[in-house]
C-alpha cells in the first residue's frame, strides 16, 4: 500500500493503482482541510467583528 511496505514493487501496476488512489484521496483531504481551516478562520473573524461592535 505504501512504498515503504515490504510488498511494494516499483512497477506500472503499483504506480497506476496506488497513484490513482492517493491522488483521489489527496484531493479529498486537501479540499476538506481547506474547508475546515477556512470555516475556523471565518468563525474567528465573525466573533472578532461581534466583539468590536
Amino acid at each position: 500500500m505504501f512504498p515503504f511496505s515490504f510488498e511494494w514493487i516499483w512497477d506500472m501496476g503499483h504506480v497506476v493503482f496506488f497513484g490513482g488512489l492517493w491522488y483521489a484521496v489527496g484531493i479529498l483531504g486537501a479540499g476538506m482541510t481547506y474547508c475546515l481551516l477556512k470555516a475556523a478562520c471565518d468563525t474567528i473573524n465573525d466573533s472578532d467583528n461581534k466583539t468590536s461592535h
Partner: protein
Amino acid sequence: MDSALIPKGAKRCSFPKFTIGIAIVSAVLLWGVYAMFLCWFKGLNQTNMNDYYGFALWIWADLAVIAVGGGAFFTGLLRYILKVDELKNIINFAVIIGFICYSSALLILAIDIGQPLRGWFIFWHANVHSMLTEVAFCLSAYFAVLTIEFIPNILENRQVNKVPFFHHLAHNMHGVMAVFAATGAFLSFFHQGSLGGVAGVLFGRPFAVREGLLIWPWTFFLFTWSAAAFGPCFTLLITKITEVITGKKLVKDNVVYLLAKISGWMIITYITAKIIDTIYWAMVTAPSLGFTLSHFYTDNSFYGYWILVTEIIICGVVPGLILIMKSTRENPTLRIIAFVLGTIGICLNRWVMVLQIMAVPVMSFDTWALYIPSWQEVATTILPVAYGIILIAIAYRYLPVFPQEKELNR
C-alpha cells in the same frame, strides 16, 4: 416534540406517527441484521453458494445498487461541472440516494467477504492486476466523496446551522463542491466501468467475454454509460415515491422534465450501443468460441429469450423512447412507467451480467446452475432497502433536502 429540528416553514407528520413508521421498517432492518450476523458468525454456509455456483444473491444487489446509485455522480457532474443550474433543486436528494446505495454496497461486500475484519487486506495486500481491486479503491473513495457531499446538507439542519463553525463549514463546502464532484465523476467512471470490465475479461465464460479497446472490454464502457443513463431514472422514481408518501410536491416539473430528458437520451444512446454489442457478440464472438446464441437461452427452466427481450426492448428501448419525446415525457403516468421500466432494466442487466453468466454451462459435462438463494441471502438483500427507507425518512424530516418544497406547498 421534535419541531425545533424540523426545517422552518416545513410541515411534517406528528412525531408518534413518524416513530411508528420507522419502527415498522426497523423490524425488517433487524431481520436483515440478524441474517448478516449469522453469515458473519456461522460463515457463508448460511448461503446456498457452493463450489459449483459461487455468487450469492447479494452480489446482484451490490451491482444493482451501485448502478442505480449512479444518479448521484451523473447529476453532480451535470450540476457542478456542466453548470446545469436547475438541478440544484434535486441534487441533495440525488446525493442522499447515492449515499444510501454506496453505503449499502459496502455493507454487502462486508457480508460477502465472510470475514469483515480482514476487509482492509484489499488495500494493504492489493492485487494490482485485478479490476476488483480498482473497484474496491474507487468504491471506498467515492463513498468518501458522497459523505462529503452529504455533510453540508446535514449541517444545514435548523439547529446545527446555528453553530457558527458549522454554518461556515457548510458554506465553504458548497464553495468547493465542484472539486469533489469532479473527483466523484472520475472515481465513478472507473469503478462502474471496472464492474462491467470484470465480466468482459472472463475469457472462460463465452456468455460474458467481449472484445474492447486496449485493456478495457466493451462491457467496461457499457456499465458506466448505463449507470449514468438509468441512475437519474431511479433518482426521479424515488423522488416520486417520496412525493406520494408525503402527499406533497417536492420538485418542480421543469426540473423533473429536464433530468428525465437527459436520462432518456442517455438511455437511447446506451441501448443502441448495447444492441450493437449484443448482435456482434451473438454473430461473431460467441460463434468464434464454439457457441450459438441458443445455447445461452435454451435447455433450462428459467433463462429464456424473454430475459434478453425484457432487458433490451421492454426495459431499455421503451423507457428511452418515452423519455425523449416531449408528449410522453410530460405525461405523468407514462413518465412513471418509464422510470419503473428503466430501474427494472438496469437491475435486470446486472442480474444477467452476474448471475446468468455463472449459470450458463461452459463445458460439455456442465449443467445449468439454477440457484435458489437461502433466506439469509434474501434478508441481507432486503436489508439495504429498509436502511434506505429509514435514512430517507430521517433526512426528509430534519434536513432541507428539497429547496422548492416551501414554495410548492404554501
